[in-house]
């Protein structure tokens, strides 16, 4: 079902968390609300499921205005960060709870509950209590409970935050599989860009109660609208250096480095201070613009090495390269940048 937030605002007392936010989630789509903590992404989620009352604007499910409808009648499935399983009920009772509350016939409750348990692969655990389950199993139960009533939308609030690294990888693909299998519209709230990029069709990146950019993960990575977006996506993260437009070139501040203007950027007038963003994979042995610096840090990651390159002016660039032995700490090197992959931002963070 299509979800539309129309000029949605939410404030707690005098604190305005979100103002005039408009966001559309298409039917069957999985959208990530990505942002740092305190940016209002969870608030948005709680407003959609009706736990928070909105201060202004409308929330539409399909064509139906849900703004004033209590959460009990919105038919949303929520997976909470802590899973919020009912500790006094067994797995089976937890999953069946939304159906029993709706007073469905017991045979029907049992059938749907078992069907959902099969979908999330917890058939063998139905008689256990939540305390007797591992984190990943609890996650699956929470997912089953959220999906069992066939909700209009599935809301996931940092669902992987409480899992260890290996389980996180596993559940990431599991959640995506289940979402695709059921074809449900889903919203994932996360602060982890890897989760957002790997699981979702589109990402809405938020900061301070505003959506900065909505795009597919690939588009957003390749073409970030602001320095914030560029900085948020990518691991290891992008590095920024201060520069100045000078004669169609970019002169790095306090250093004898000149970079060509990226082809897709609008050339700013001479003397304009700008910020140049260079992703680690675009700095290395290949490229067209040389950069000199000293290797100040080497981190071995197995297949690749991550280097910190300190420039003459003290700024630090990152480079990720295939593992090799020919450079070591404190070496002076001259590496190259692929100038077509540079991002150019204005002083206020806007992409040029």
């Amino acid at each position: 079902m299509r979800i539309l937030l129309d000029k949605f605002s939410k404030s707690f007392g005098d604190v305005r968390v979100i103002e005039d936010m408009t966001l559309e989630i298409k039917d069957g789509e999985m959208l990530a609300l990505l942002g740092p903590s305190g940016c209002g992404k969870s608030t948005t989620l709680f407003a959609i499921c009706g736990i928070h009352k909105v201060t202004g604007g409308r929330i539409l499910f399909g064509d139906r205005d849900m703004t004033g409808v209590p959460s009990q009648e919105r038919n949303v499935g929520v997976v909470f960060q802590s899973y919020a399983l009912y500790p006094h009920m067994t797995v089976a009772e937890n999953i069946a709870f939304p159906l029993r509350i709706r007073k469905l016939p017991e045979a029907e409750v049992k059938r749907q509950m078992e069907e959902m348990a099969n979908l999330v692969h917890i058939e063998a655990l139905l008689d256990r209590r939540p305390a007797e389950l591992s984190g990943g199993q609890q996650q699956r139960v929470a997912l089953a409970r959220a999906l069992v009533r066939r909700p209009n939308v599935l809301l996931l609030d940092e669902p992987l935050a409480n899992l260890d690294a290996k389980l996180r990888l596993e559940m990431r693909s599991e959640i995506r599989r289940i979402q695709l299998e059921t074809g449900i519209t889903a919203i994932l709230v996360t602060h982890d860009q890897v989760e957002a990029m790997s699981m979702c069709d589109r990402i809405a990146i938020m900061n301070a109660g505003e959506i900065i950019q909505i795009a597919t993960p690939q588009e957003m990575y390749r073409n970030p609208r602001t320095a914030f977006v560029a900085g948020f996506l990518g691991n290891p993260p992008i590095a920024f250096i201060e520069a100045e437009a000078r004669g169609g070139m970019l002169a790095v501040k306090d250093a004898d480095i000149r970079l060509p203007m990226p082809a897709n950027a609008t050339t700013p007038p001479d003397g304009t201070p700008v910020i140049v963003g260079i992703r680690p994979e675009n700095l290395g042995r290949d490229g067209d613009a040389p950069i000199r610096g000293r290797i100040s840090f080497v981190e071995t990651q197995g297949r690749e090495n991550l280097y910190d390159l300190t420039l003459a002016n003290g700024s630090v660039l990152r480079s990720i390269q295939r593992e090799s032995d020919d450079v070591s700490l404190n070496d002076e090197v001259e590496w190259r940048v692929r100038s077509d992959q540079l991002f150019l931002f204005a002083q206020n963070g806007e992409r040029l």
Partner: protein
Amino acid sequence: MNASRDIARDGSAPLKARAVPARRSFGWLNSSKGLGIVLLTPALMLVVLFFLAPVVLTAVFAFTNMSTATGITGGAYQVSPGTLRVLTDRYGMRELAARLGQPTYIVDEEGLAALEEMGIDPGIIAGLRDEHLGETYSSRREFEREIRDLPDRPSTRTVKQISAEFSRSLANARFGNAGALVAAAEAIDPDLGDAEKEALLDATYTGWTWTTDNFRRLASSPQTTRVLLNTVFFVALTLTLFNTGFAMVLAITTHYIPERPAGIFRIIWFLPRISPAVIYVLLWKWLAWDTGFISAFLDNFGVRPRNWMLGSATNAWVFVILINGFVGASMGMVIFASAIKAIPQSLFHAASVDGAYRWQQVRHIILPHLKWPILFVTCYQTLSLLTAIDHILLSTDGGPGGSTEVWSLWVYHTALNNYAGNLQYGYGAAMALVLVVIGVVLSLIYLRLFNYSALIVKPRIEH
């Protein structure tokens, strides 16, 4: 590095030298055992003084027949028509009682010596000794006839004096110890058997004795059943209606209203507990008196003023349960409210989006989480209500006509304060002991129920 280590070593040396003697004398304070005993001492003293000693004394008194009549020190042996009746009725010794009760005259050396003291004519004394020594007369007339027949022929006045001296009746005699009584009785009836002596001593003793009669009396008294039913009725109703029921309503409603009004609400419901019992009950009395608020208010509608609290047994119960319930509800409220607060907020959110409205949340989320608090409050309040006395004493004092007399109040009335004035310490102690036994048994069951030993098990973290 080395230098600083040396300095540290040097610096610590004098410290150590000073610490050693202190360690020797107070070293035991550093062990958890030694310090534990020191810290526990005041608590142990209080437990012994205010719990163990009263319980032990109660148990001791329960096996006596102490009362105002017997006193709590020793007693004497008093022969009275009453004790003779006891001898007849309880021991079936009608003959003995008749013999002891009759005036009896025995001519013995003791009497003769007394006559000499009084300055009676030695001739008369000699005549009595020669002719009648050792004889016994059961009637005054017969004895006096014999005296008159003596060779000296004493005057009538002297005859009376003489006969009085030989009167050996036990009726209304008082003896300081058992030996004196037995000697006197044997003087009347030398063939007194051991059983008869025993019975006589028992029947005439005015002090307290060891006995198990209190429990027999308690078991057979119809009042026991009545008071017991009153107590069960009082505890059950107050507990279910107020201490858990109403407390739960308060806790749940304050959970769903905003923080500040909820706090004010809770404080108001705490007032009965923190106000002094006398003032609190006095307010209730003002409410219920025939010149009180209820009467004054209903007067406007033509209802005759009357004492609403003591007007009928039903009214009295209503007031007793309200008065105790409003005090008791606050504890349950606090415990339930904090237990509800401990439920993660996300569970309520989850229940809301799962479609559960508030009353369904109460039923499916809150109540299952309150299982243990409810059990705890029930157990704790059962014990506290079983021994509750102050509010009932101050409000109805068991009235009207003993209809609100509960066990603890009955103990108080029997042993410490009653209208008849005969305070039966022993009987009251026996009643109290029953209460103590019930309380201890219930406590043990509860501790078992709550798995107390698991609660106080040593932590597995190293200490």
